[in-house]
């Protein structure tokens, strides 16, 4: 089994899911290659080889890979596959992974599976696991013909230091046709206070708060708990809170000990951004909201009545 693992690397290197997937695939496959997109990657690649034992890392290192455009990525993957055909392409979780897989699925005539969380070899046959029905059930995923295209939603596991000496090579970004151009980019200003990514507790509000004023109840609870304050995407879209407070796959991906979601339904992009939270408490007046099925503690009720009481109780007991 020969696999190509496609990962994205930000300034801090690949995320934990990508490292875990790389290590797992390197242990599973006879031959493993990683293709890493980003910029200024060489040092990162050396570290990743040591962490994961992957046999070969190809670095597609260019400023254009800091953005989410898929054209050059697809062309680069195509060029790599033309040189070294594989049985499977594994996409680590990222914003662009589903777009890459959909595009390659059409151009390669390959089978695409997505939302995957685990991978195994069963008598030489690649098999993945996909949770369905709000994660209450799972299905097995297999491919009848290659290359198998597998998009991971998350991948947990620990990478242990490897003595394997993988190779590192640079691959030039391939030129893509019919792609949009970047007209402008704006970085969101991130306040150094109460950083979401470092917080042990995050309390966040969603559309269910009803208004910008409704968010004050969430801020009060966050303050009482000594937590960072966050919001979901619809709250930012409504202009009720600044962009740098957004939790989710397109905002800040967090991994607190405790995440308290107030009036947040829990759509998939939000869920992907909070998946590494140790415990999740959800407060929502809709018992059928997706988050109520996968939170650890789900409270059905009107948050406008409930939050002030909860805030008072926390202040009264002095537990923050």
């Amino acid at each position, binding site marked *: 089994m020969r696999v190509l693992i496609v990962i994205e690397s930000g300034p801090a290197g690949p995320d934990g899911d990508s490292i875990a997937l790389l290590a797992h695939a390197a242990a599973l496959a006879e031959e493993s290659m990683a293709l890493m997109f980003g910029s200024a990657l060489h040092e990162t690649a050396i570290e990743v080889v040591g962490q994961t034992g992957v046999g070969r890392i190809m670095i597609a290192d260019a400023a254009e890979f800091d*953005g989410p455009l898929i054209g050059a990525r697809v062309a680069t993957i195509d060029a790599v596959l033309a040189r070294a055909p594989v049985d499977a392409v594994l996409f680590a979780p990222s914003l662009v992974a589903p777009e890459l897989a959909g595009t390659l699925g059409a151009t390669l005539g390959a089978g*695409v599976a997505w939302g995957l969380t685990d991978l195994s070899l069963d008598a030489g046959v690649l098999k993945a696991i996909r949770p369905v029905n709000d994660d209450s059930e799972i299905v097995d995923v297999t491919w009848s013909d290659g290359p198998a295209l597998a998009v991971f939603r998350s991948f947990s596991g620990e990478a242990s230091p490897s003595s394997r000496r993988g190779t590192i090579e640079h691959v030039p970004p391939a030129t893509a046709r019919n*792609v*949009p151009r970047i*007209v402008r980019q704006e*970085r969101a200003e*991130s306040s150094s206070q109460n950083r979401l990514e470092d917080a042990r507790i995050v309390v966040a509000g969603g559309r269910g708060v009803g208004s910008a004023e409704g968010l004050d109840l969430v801020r009060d609870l966050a303050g009482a708990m000594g937590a960072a304050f966050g919001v979901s995407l619809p709250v930012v879209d409504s202009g009720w809170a600044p962009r740098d407070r957004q939790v989710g796959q397109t905002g800040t991906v967090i991994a607190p000990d405790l995440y308290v979601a107030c009036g947040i339904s829990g759509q998939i992009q939000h869920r992907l951004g909070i998946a590494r939270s140790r*415990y999740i408490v959800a407060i929502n007046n809709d018992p059928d909201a997706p988050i109520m099925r996968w939170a650890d*503690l789900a409270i059905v009720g009107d948050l406008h009545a409930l939050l002030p009481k909860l805030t008072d109780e926390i202040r009264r007991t002095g*537990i923050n």
Partner: protein
Amino acid sequence: MRFVAFVKTATGAAIDAADALARAGRIGPGTLGPVDARAVEAAIRLREAFGGDVVAAAIAPPDVMGAVREAIAIGADRGMILADPLIDAADLVERGRVAAALLTHLGADIGIYGPWPGDVDGTILWSAAGAVLGWPVLPQARSLRIDEGEIVVSRQVQGGDIWLGTPPPCLIEITEGLPAARRASLKSRQTARSKPLQLLTLNDIACSPPTPSKAAFEGRRPAAGRAQPIVLADPEAAPAAVITFLRERGLVPCAS
């Protein structure tokens, strides 16, 4: 220029058609959902800027006719439904090929679609359609404008926003960041009811039947070891219960 706004086009059937339609059809097959209505609105605004016409298109069973008629009442020039049982078992990539064939058949310059919230399935489908057509895909548009003949959309990414531009043809995925649809008047609804809708099959659009998926999803079973959430339906008891929950898990100091 021809703008095709997709409505009621279900995606996740590769795993579970019933689940996919339940998610898409929470408001009933005959009703136009707000995200689909935004797609129609975006198409109308592009028509106002470029000239041309708007087609409201559904790849769905014929019972979505009411939704297509509502799209016409909002302002689409005409509506059509691609309803073919052969599509039911198609996977996302094959559905993308079908959507591409429909856009080609309609002579579209721009295809516009709205996702279900956070819809990975839709992303795969429309990326496949873009690849088949050779068109750029502008995903997750939070704003949409025309600048010297170029479509420019903004998209949120981790750490900021990015504006992407391309001349037509292209595919545009709209989000709730774009303006809501205008209201249909009683008169426009009456007019929409009198307009004929096109019902098409794959044969009509010269599209070969979808091939079986190369990815199989089987062996559905309960997820092991997943703890059921503790559900509190009594808001009065919630504050004390939350504190107990936090203490039991060592998230806050225990009571002295």
